[in-house]
């Protein structure tokens, strides 16, 4: 066989495959499950084909856990010193920070690997892209329960949001937050302002709250025990949500998992979607989400 040279070509080294200089791969990131950084990076590599289209041109907020879950953690919006050249940057004046922020855009695989290597376990994204940063392309209902309500109660509320949207001819997408709640998202056509979609979400919340005693539509009641808050306030400039397929810093290494509405039945447990159970082989329920951009009543 004229094999040797060819065979060596088939076993490339890590540096042939990625420009990212990987470090501390044995660092334990999820101590409860003894999951190392290597497993975290491998997870994001596997999820990249689903994540990258969604993340494209969407300013990121990193939530970093350099010491692993349970250790020190911090949010980072600004590209840190030493950010490599393959990472795209979007510079913008941020009102919240009162200065120019150099946002990271995860526009390629190496950037995603680089983020994972920084132990940025959680990736949070804005509801608009750099194409029209001031105009949202997603409407978000962030549905969160207060104990002792169960996840079944959250499912009921998410379903009524879904049904009401459907009645209005609007298609919506659902994912777990990766923690206690559910996110319902509507992809929007161009030109909306954040105030408009915030008002729409607020109206919807108020309407559901009128018929469902456990649902609250106003922020001051959002932490009342035994209630579910339909958070419309996330629909604002610079606010973020956990990206689809982002890991969450929980003991169980849960994932903010996109779902089909059929999957969302009583007895569903969000913790079943975690770093070890997310299968890249199955269909992506959010696939083609931006092919269904819609209009809502202003």
């Amino acid at each position, binding site marked *: 066989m004229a094999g040797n040279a060819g065979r060596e070509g088939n076993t490339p080294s890590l540096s042939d495959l990625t420009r990212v200089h990987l470090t501390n791969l044995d660092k334990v990131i999820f101590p409860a499950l003894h999951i190392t950084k290597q497993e975290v990076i*491998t997870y994001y590599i596997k999820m990249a084909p689903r994540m990258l289209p969604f993340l494209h041109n969407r300013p990121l907020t990193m939530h970093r856990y350099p010491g692993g879950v349970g250790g020190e953690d911090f949010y980072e919006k600004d590209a840190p010193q030493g950010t490599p050249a393959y990472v795209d940057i979007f510079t913008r004046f941020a009102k919240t920070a009162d200065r120019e922020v150099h946002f990271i855009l995860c526009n390629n695989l190496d950037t995603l690997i680089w983020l994972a290597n920084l132990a940025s376990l959680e990736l949070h994204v804005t509801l608009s892209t750099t194409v029209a940063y001031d105009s949202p392309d997603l409407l978000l209902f962030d549905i969160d329960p207060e104990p002792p309500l169960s996840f079944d109660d959250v499912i009921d509320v998410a379903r009524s949001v879904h049904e009401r949207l459907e009645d209005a001819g609007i298609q919506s997408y659902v994912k777990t937050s990766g923690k206690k709640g559910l996110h319902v998202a509507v992809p929007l056509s161009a030109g909306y302002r954040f105030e408009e979609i915030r008002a729409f979400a607020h109206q919807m919340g108020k309407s559901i709250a009128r018929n469902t005693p456990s649902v609250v539509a106003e922020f001051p009641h959002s932490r009342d025990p035994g209630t579910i808050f339909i958070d419309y306030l996330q629909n604002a400039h610079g606010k973020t949500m956990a990206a689809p397929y982002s890991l969450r810093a929980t003991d169980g290494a849960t994932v903010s998992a996109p779902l089909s509405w059929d999957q969302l039945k009583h007895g569903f447990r969000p913790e079943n979607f975690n770093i070890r159970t997310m299968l890249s082989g199955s269909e992506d329920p959010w696939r083609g989400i931006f092919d269904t951009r819609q209009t809502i009543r202003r």
Partner: protein
Amino acid sequence: MKTHGGASLTPGRQSGDKTAHRSPQGRAKKIVAGVPGPEPVLPTGISGEQVTKKDQPKTLVIPEHPPDEPAQKGNAGRPFWSGSITIGLVNVPVRLHTMVRDRSFSFRLLHREDGQPLRYDRVCTKDGRVIPWADTVKGYEVRKGEYVVFEPDELKAVMPESDRKIRIEKFVYYLSLDPTYFETPYILVPDRSEEAYSLLVTALQDLGRAAVGTITLRTKEYPVVVHVYGGGLVLTTLRHADEVTSPHAFEQLTSLPVPKGSELMLAKRIINELSGDFSLTDYPDRYQEAVMRLIEKKLAGEKIVHEEPHPEEAKELMQALEETIATLAGK
């Protein structure tokens, strides 16, 4: 793949040093002392013989227990103290065995150049001379630079006399003792006094009580508590009251606000949700384990690789990377 030879724990062992493989002798010296010297210094418990044999990797393991402490169950080694538990006129002869073993290890300081261990000397701060033990006395600093001086005999005179007795003064509910005061536990083993010992164990257990009293160990008298644990008696020395800071020393803690009813309800609910059993075996000492693995690797002559993964270890990552690159390229 790049490897970084610089992670060496033994300074002086540089990559490219070929003497390491020249002879078994040279290799042993290399690993432990850095450069071939007249006397290879070996860690306790490892003979030069073992280190030199290349094809005996499994023998190169650091002993799991300090050499002076047998590891086997059932034979817990020599007693640390023997005497008797005294309750009024009743004596129960017992032997005291150590119960906790500090697994943390210490490194020795070596001279980087020749790899030889360093020692500490008693150096006079005035003239810089090394002073032999015989020429030392003990001093208690009363004011800066001013000492009350003691000859060894003077201190001996006031040392508490060890009368080989654990004097029990009272019986208390064990749960009424706060662990803040607990210092070191010891196992009490009957010294040909099984019957009396067993009687004490059973009686304490039935009543849920522990015995408190005093013991004199070496030069110090300690308050102690004796309680039933795992079917035997355990003696724990206690700290003296003035060795523990009271939380009342902090002003904020004396005037804490009263929590709101609803918040308290929520907090309690969270606590109840997170309630569970606690097992210390869930908390291994990962640093200790990692360093022990490093030591074993060094002894086996392996280069310590850091930063970049072993090809074998990163296999799954590499495979995922190749697949994802192919998927993205196909789009």
